[in-house]
């Protein structure tokens, strides 16, 4: 993935922009998975399960399979044997939604001191997913682990080529103690509220290292490594809005938009020359400079603006106002010339009188841009930034630069009169 662009938005939102990825669901799961890792002991008591099954639905009972000790067996509720230890219950995938809604509604009393979590889809029995009954106590959590690493078994191993994640514990004795106390039970390893695996603890595990195997692809294993290394996020993330723009659409609309702006710009340039002759050229120089200034400003890392559509809108308004400033000045100069003032006087008076007009109209717009920046969000903020920068640049170019060029042309005696 390319380096993402991350911005904060408001009090509790973050905008993440990633250029050039195709697989949005992978990006989404990387963002959404907060990397919450837990080790919890499985409740293997068959009587607890009986209560839960009764609660779920009597019609469903025929579909229930239990996984115990690595073997999957099917039992009718009325005829449950007492298997030594239950690891998980297998639920038909099509019943998952139903089970979820029932559990959410009535399981409060039954689930004292315990919780139910879904695992992965079962490999042995197609179309079934494991449901685990777990303690509430978290034995080890993500911040107690170190050195997570995605690794692959060598191909001559019994697990030939399979990916796994190895990790160490900050306190090896704690893990040793837990495995000793719960010998014979299952220990569920949970990543972002999904049980990845629940191996049986056959003996006390010393050395402070563990591995998680969960039928990962290489990509998944590496993503999990990334998430674990980054550590558990302090807050849960909800995706509030997701926008994917195909490069072809982006390119398409950028091309069309760019083309139309170029056409507009050139027609304005031609119009100004046609209408104001040499002064038009002057105005055009100011306008091109103005655009360059804005782009230079916005490229400044301090401002950190991403050019979006509202940003372009701000630029259009700015260019419009820059043209207007020139028109105001030139029309004023014409007026003064019609009063039979000398050319130099007309320029002096024209600029002087036009300045106040431009100052007030630009400052009013600047006031509105600033308040949009302070109180608006997202797109509106982007508009306000380009507009504010644009107004300042255009006042500078339209008033200061054109006047300086004009006056220096006269003062050097280079030109006596310019056609307007």
């Amino acid at each position, binding site marked *: 993935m390319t380096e993402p662009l991350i911005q904060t938005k408001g009090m509790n939102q973050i905008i993440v922009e990633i250029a050039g990825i195709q697989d949005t669901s992978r990006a989404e799961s990387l963002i959404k998975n907060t990397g919450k890792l837990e080790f919890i002991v499985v409740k293997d008591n068959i009587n607890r399960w009986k209560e839960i099954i009764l609660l779920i639905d009597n019609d469903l009972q025929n579909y229930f399979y239990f996984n115990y000790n690595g073997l999957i067996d099917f039992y009718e509720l009325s005829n449950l044997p007492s298997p030594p230890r239950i690891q998980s219950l297998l639920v038909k995938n099509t019943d998952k939604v139903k089970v979820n809604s029932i559990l959410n509604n009535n399981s409060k009393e039954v689930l004292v001191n315990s919780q139910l979590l879904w695992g992965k889809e079962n490999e042995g029995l197609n179309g079934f997913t494991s449901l685990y009954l777990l303690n509430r106590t978290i034995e080890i959590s993500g911040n107690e682990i170190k050195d997570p690493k995605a690794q692959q078994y060598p191909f001559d191993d019994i697990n030939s080529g399979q990916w796994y994640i190895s990790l160490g514990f900050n306190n090896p004795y704690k893990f040793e103690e837990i495995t000793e106390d719960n010998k014979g039970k299952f220990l569920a390893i949970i990543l972002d509220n999904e049980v990845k695996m629940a191996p049986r603890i056959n003996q006390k595990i010393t050395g402070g290292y563990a591995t998680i195997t969960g039928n990962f692809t290489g990509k998944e294993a590496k993503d999990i490594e990334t998430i674990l290394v980054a550590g558990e996020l302090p807050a849960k993330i909800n995706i509030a809005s997701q926008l994917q723009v195909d490069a072809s659409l982006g390119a398409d609309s950028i091309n069309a938009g760019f083309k139309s702006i170029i056409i507009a710009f050139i027609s304005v340039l031609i119009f100004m020359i046609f209408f104001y002759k040499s002064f038009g050229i002057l105005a055009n120089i100011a306008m091109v400079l103005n655009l360059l200034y804005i782009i230079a400003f916005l490229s400044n890392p301090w401002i950190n603006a991403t050019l979006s559509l509202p940003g372009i809108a701000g630029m259009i308004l700015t260019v419009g106002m820059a043209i207007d400033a020139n028109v105001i000045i030139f029309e004023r100069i014409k007026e003064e010339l*019609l009063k039979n003032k000398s050319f130099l006087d007309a320029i002096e008076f024209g600029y002087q009188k036009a300045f106040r007009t431009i100052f007030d109209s630009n400052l009013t717009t600047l006031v509105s841009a600033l308040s949009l920046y302070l109180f608006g969000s997202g*797109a509106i903020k982007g508009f306000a930034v380009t507009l504010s920068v644009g107004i300042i640049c255009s006042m500078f170019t339209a008033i200061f630069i054109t006047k300086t060029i004009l006056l220096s042309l006269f003062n050097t005696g280079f030109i006596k009169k310019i056609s307007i």
Partner: protein
Amino acid sequence: MIKIFHNSKINFVSKFNKAYFISLSLIIIGFSFYLFKGAEFGIDFNGGTELIIEFEQSKLETNNQKSELINLFKLNDISFSKIKTYGKNKIQILSEENLDKDFISNQISNLNFNIVSYNKIGSTISKELKNDAVKALLIAIILIGLYIIVRFDWYSAVGSIAALVHDLMIVISILIVSSVQFDTNIIAALLIIIGYSLNDTIVIFDRIRENINEFSNVDLDQTINLSLNQTLGRTMITSLTTLFVVVSLFVFGGGSLSGLSYALIIGVLSGTYSSLFVATPIMMFLRNKYYIDENEKEEKWQ
């Protein structure tokens, strides 16, 4: 020297009554459309999913493609609220629900359709967008008003803000009548229109302010007519050049810019009109009514 409207002596003030009538009837038409038809909000405001699907141009007419898509969607129980052509060979589909991109992508891949844009917005963010936009605009308008009161006077402040609100209402009315969908682009357009309208009005008010100072013994009617005629050349040149820009955005800008540029064309026309026929009459009316009552010494026209 090309002179346009120089020496023009149009009696603007005498046309103010007609102007009130035109503006009010346009707004009333727009709002009755709003009541009967309602505005179309994009998913930026309502939350939901927007899909833009591209197809091979050579294959069929766009309308056939559209009906093919509609059938496909109905067959698969995918609910959508709107489907329309978008540019040359694209179709835009809007749904209030969260559509699953992969599922749809699989369904349409046999038909040589291709999803080029997928946009999903939750309802919290859309609510926020609406509130933020309205709040920011209101505060902006208040601050603009304060600035104009300081630099000009309160008659001008009321006049400029009335013109600004007028332009927004005209643009929104016409957008509703022409069934344009309201989304972030339209917000951007409305922001430009506010800026444009304000700029246009202030330039004219500045000239009126100057002329009132210079010809303090002349009737307000005459001073205003003089000012409007003096600035008419600039008003026309600026709105023409701005129209150049927005019309070329509309013609050459492609599907994604069409709503924005359409709104801008109306906005520029309305903004130019409102400076002359909304802002100025209201300012004149208020000044005629209240200026004499106030302390004679008050000299705000500097």
